[in-house]
């Protein structure tokens, strides 16, 4: 499948390195709003979770969903509606939104897994567009082109109107989502997903109901994407059609590709870079987000398909000395057509 197959999570790292990475990651997450404008920090956290959610599918199961905006967006709307109508703490609203996203995902997944590869991408993209049209038409609920406005940040009576404090209120939810994704990847279930990615026929021959696994991970992924979308909606105080539009689906894919799919850390890195870049372009008054995103797509796909994290891992692994192993400049092409040497490590 599409992923650089050799990337096996953080395998090959020593335990100390992994713990250190988590500690550093946590420290960065905790310190983020001190040195970055807090609403941007919140965006980074939400998009990072969204990107990791997609990584479960794209990186670990080898399924390119090009319609994940449907789940991020439907949760943004649902979260907003729950928060507005019930006034419950935003944790409840976000969880409710994520459940709605998972429910939306279930029929889409059941239909989409009937095709594989490139068709899967096209089908998910088309279904996401269906969700977009529904959101556009159902004005009484979604507000149509005006979007859903005035979503409150209720949290047990605490005043979270300052984005700095809201970040810390929402961060546990994001971290919980990331931890959940990590658990999925490192569970027996996650191993089966990788087996499906590597060789669906063999996984089936071994008795795994491949399609059922695909539907399950799709719904899980949509749930996490929903979690992220809900947090995003609460953070911004509104949900708009942009959240369900295909460019949003594309954006989360580019985060994965740029960061390095199938690595969990990579998508987090990719999300951070893209959000910061967009923020930079916006403040600098450069109105070219689409062109820049497109250029990143083109360059990453042409030049380093492993993404930043994947390339770094690759270089690191080769450094640690194996005589004739493939060098960092080797094209993924060769890697993909023959069983990868690194995978046996």
């Amino acid at each position, binding site marked *: *499948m*599409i992923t650089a197959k050799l990337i096996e999570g953080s395998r090959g790292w020593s335990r100390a390195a992994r713990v250190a990475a988590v500690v550093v990651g946590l420290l960065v997450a905790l310190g983020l709003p001190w040195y970055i404008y807090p609403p941007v920090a919140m965006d980074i956290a939400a998009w990072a979770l969204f990107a990791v959610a997609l990584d479960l599918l794209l990186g670990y199961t080898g399924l*390119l969903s*090009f319609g994940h905006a449907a789940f991020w967006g439907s949760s943004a709307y649902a979260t907003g509606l729950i928060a507005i109508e019930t006034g419950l703490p935003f944790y409840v609203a976000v969880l409710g939104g994520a459940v709605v996203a998972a429910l939306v995902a279930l029929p889409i997944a059941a*239909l*989409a897994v*009937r*095709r*594989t*590869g*490139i*068709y899967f*991408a*096209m*089908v998910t*993209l*088309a*279904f996401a*567009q*269906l969700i977009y*049209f*529904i959101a556009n*038409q159902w004005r009484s609920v979604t507000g149509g082109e005006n979007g859903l406005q005035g979503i409150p940040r209720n949290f047990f009576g605490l005043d979270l109107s300052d984005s700095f404090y809201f970040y810390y209120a929402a961060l546990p939810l994001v971290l919980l989502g990331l931890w959940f994704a990590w658990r999925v990847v490192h569970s027996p279930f996650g191993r089966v997903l990788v087996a499906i990615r590597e060789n669906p026929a063999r996984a089936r021959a071994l008795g795994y109901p491949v399609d059922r696994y695909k539907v399950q991970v799709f719904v899980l992924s949509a749930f996490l994407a929903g979690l992220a979308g809900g947090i995003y909606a609460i953070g911004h105080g509104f949900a708009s059609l942009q959240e369900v539009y*295909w*460019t949003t689906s*594309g954006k989360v*894919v*580019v985060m994965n*590709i740029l960061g390095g799919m199938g690595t969990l850390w990579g998508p987090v890195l990719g999300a951070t870079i893209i959000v910061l870049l967009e923020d930079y372009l916006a403040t600098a008054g450069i*109105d*070219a*987000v*689409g*062109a820049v*995103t*497109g*250029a*990143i*797509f*083109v360059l990453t*796909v*042409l030049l380093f*398909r492993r993404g930043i994290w994947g390339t770094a891992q690759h270089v690191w692994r080769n450094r640690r000395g194996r005589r004739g192993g493939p060098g960092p400049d080797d094209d*993924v*092409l060769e890697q*993909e057509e023959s069983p990868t040497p690194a995978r046996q490590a």
Partner: protein
Amino acid sequence: MDGLLQQVFNGLVSGSFYALLALGLSVIFGMLGVVNFAHGAFYMLGAFGAFVLLDSFGLSWWLALLVVPVLLAVVGMVFERTLVHRLVGLDPLYNFLLTFGVALILQDVVRMRYGVTSQPYTRPELLSGSVNLGLFTYPTYQVFVLIFSIVASVLVWLVLSRTRIGMIVRASTERAELSQALGIDVRRWVTPVFGFGIGLAALAGVLAAPMRAVNSTMGGDLIIVIFAVVVIGGLGSVFGSVAAGYLVGMLSAVGNFYTPALSQSLVFILMALVLLLRPAGLFGREEGVHA
């Protein structure tokens, strides 16, 4: 009843665009195994090409109909040689992502230059009136588009099914390695076929200029509908893509007559049904080499 009939006609006209675009997409996919996301962007460029020719050079629409597809076909061939070609042989998803990126760039560059408002384009004088079709009168231009696209589709089908070139392309499409073994230089045909597919998209764009809103996003939303169309028709199948194009056009238009709110969604609902009942598409065979 007249109203319904008129809707059927509207459907056939919008189906003409779907058919031309799906056809190009299908031919390219067959030859290279590449799903070209930038197809919609080239359609948009086709419309803008006509606009620029008229606006800056005073060249008529008729000339644009001839010049723009050829020009963009050349651009498409360069695109294939310089970028797409590098990723053929890898997982087709890489080219999907590459062409997606290119589509974003093209769309955004046009937006930067021309803004988001639609560019005005007047109908060519010869086709500006309306014709009496017996039951109702209909704009001449739309009738022309319909006939033109049917003729173009039939021509492409004839070329593919009756000529030697078509035979080579079909053979390369279906069994690339075997064709190679039989002495056909498959690679020689890849670039021209890609250019041809792009030319068809540009042609649809020029046709769209006088009757659709000419703006940078006109291709982006359309391409997703086209994806649904080719999933419905069966991506590898030339006939299936064209038939599904007209079918989807009519379905949306008739849907618009009965339930306007749903009309845009109907194509996706049809796609869901097809996936449920005939996953390979209405006219598709089981997924083969490129699956």
